[in-house]
């Protein structure tokens, strides 16, 4: 369903404007065009199909309710849509309050290290070889790259990253910061 819609170029901004005007078919179009990918993003973060579906459903309702706040002059429509989805997923993840380091295996859905690494590698490999983000991530220390990818792709908090890497929370925080500044320097 989502694949079929992918053949068309979707004008997300017009669809959001139509949503703001109360056009439900615009939201449906957005769901058909972007929902499959959104579900994939949510699934990667939440790790459970049922939670990912809940997150997608909630996000679509939120997009509908907030569509009037979207301002085309302030940023891309696709970025806006994914920001809503990601916030929703993060809220669901953070409810369990995981600012303390989590040792792998204590929670049912914590990924074992291999799966974790496979998902991150896959995300990294799928970035186009010419992508600036890929080239700049490549230039980071492997541990820093892994930390940054874990937070974006898997929704890990500082605490969870620390748990996975077996490093103190404080060093992980400053480490991620240094990585982010380096990444920016490289990207600009």
């Amino acid at each position: 369903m989502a694949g079929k819609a992918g053949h068309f170029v979707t004008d997300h901004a017009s669809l959001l404007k139509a949503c703001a005007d109360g056009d439900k078919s615009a939201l449906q179009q957005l769901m058909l065009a972007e929902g499959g990918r959104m579900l994939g993003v949510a699934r990667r973060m939440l790790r459970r199909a049922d939670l990912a579906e809940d997150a997608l459903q909630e996000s679509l309702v939120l997009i509908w309710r907030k569509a009037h706040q979207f301002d085309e002059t302030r940023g891309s429509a696709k970025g806006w849509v994914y920001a809503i989805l990601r916030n929703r997923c993060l809220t669901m993840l953070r409810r369990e309050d995981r600012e303390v380091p989590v040792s792998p295996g204590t929670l049912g859905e914590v990924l074992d290290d291999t799966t974790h690494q496979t998902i991150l590698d896959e995300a990294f490999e799928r970035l186009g070889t010419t992508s600036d983000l890929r080239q700049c991530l490549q230039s980071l220390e492997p541990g820093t790259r892994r930390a940054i990818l874990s937070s974006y792709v898997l929704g890990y908090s500082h605490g969870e990253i620390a748990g996975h890497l077996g490093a103190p929370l404080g060093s992980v925080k400053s480490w991620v910061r240094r990585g982010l500044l380096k990444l920016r320097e490289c990207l600009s």
Partner: protein
Amino acid sequence: MTDRSLDLLIDEVVLGLAGDADIARLEELARQDPDVAARLDQARQRFGALDDTADVLSLPDGLWARVEARLDAPEQHVPQAKAAPDNLIDLDTLRQSVGRWRRAALGGLAAAMLLAVVLGWSVLSQPGPVVVAVLLDDRGEAIALVESGRDNTTQITLLERPDMPSNQVMQVWTKPDDDGPPVSLGLLSTGRSDTLTIEGLPTPSPRQLYEITLEPAGGSPTNLPTGPIFGKGLAKAPVT
């Protein structure tokens, strides 16, 4: 804030590493400053390349029907995230969805009963307004009707929709004391007619000023009117 710390704040929010307070702070900054908004958007797009690496999954059956059913419903709290499963029996999912439907049905029933009680109460017992004001814009057009009760419960019926950007909100003011400062009665945050309540003000009197101004999202930062006046008018007591 230095450029460097703003950059870090933006990156940490986009990555999902920032706390609620930082997220709120950045959103407010972006609302006020198009430059910050542009930088936030740029960071989102940079990392957004990673969203495109996720699998495209097929949408669950009936998703649209479930979404559509909620579009007209009044805003409700999003359901709490479920706890991690303690077993992996498929029945569990089924039970959860049955539970969800049951909760929705009971919730709907409760809402209907509450509405009946509230409506009945307000029809039967609501005393009439002690003052009424018609607010006019600068061209003399009526833009809103204000009716206030003895306890300053104020019903605002909009007669015009203001032409305002989405980052602004209508704020309602009154001057209980002719020589005193205007006091905020509240925001019309939905952009529609609404009833506002406030405590601690004297019973409104005839000739009392009411006005609606357009303020930044969240309301006037100074707690006094700062934005353009949408409309204003003096109250009168209805003839009874």
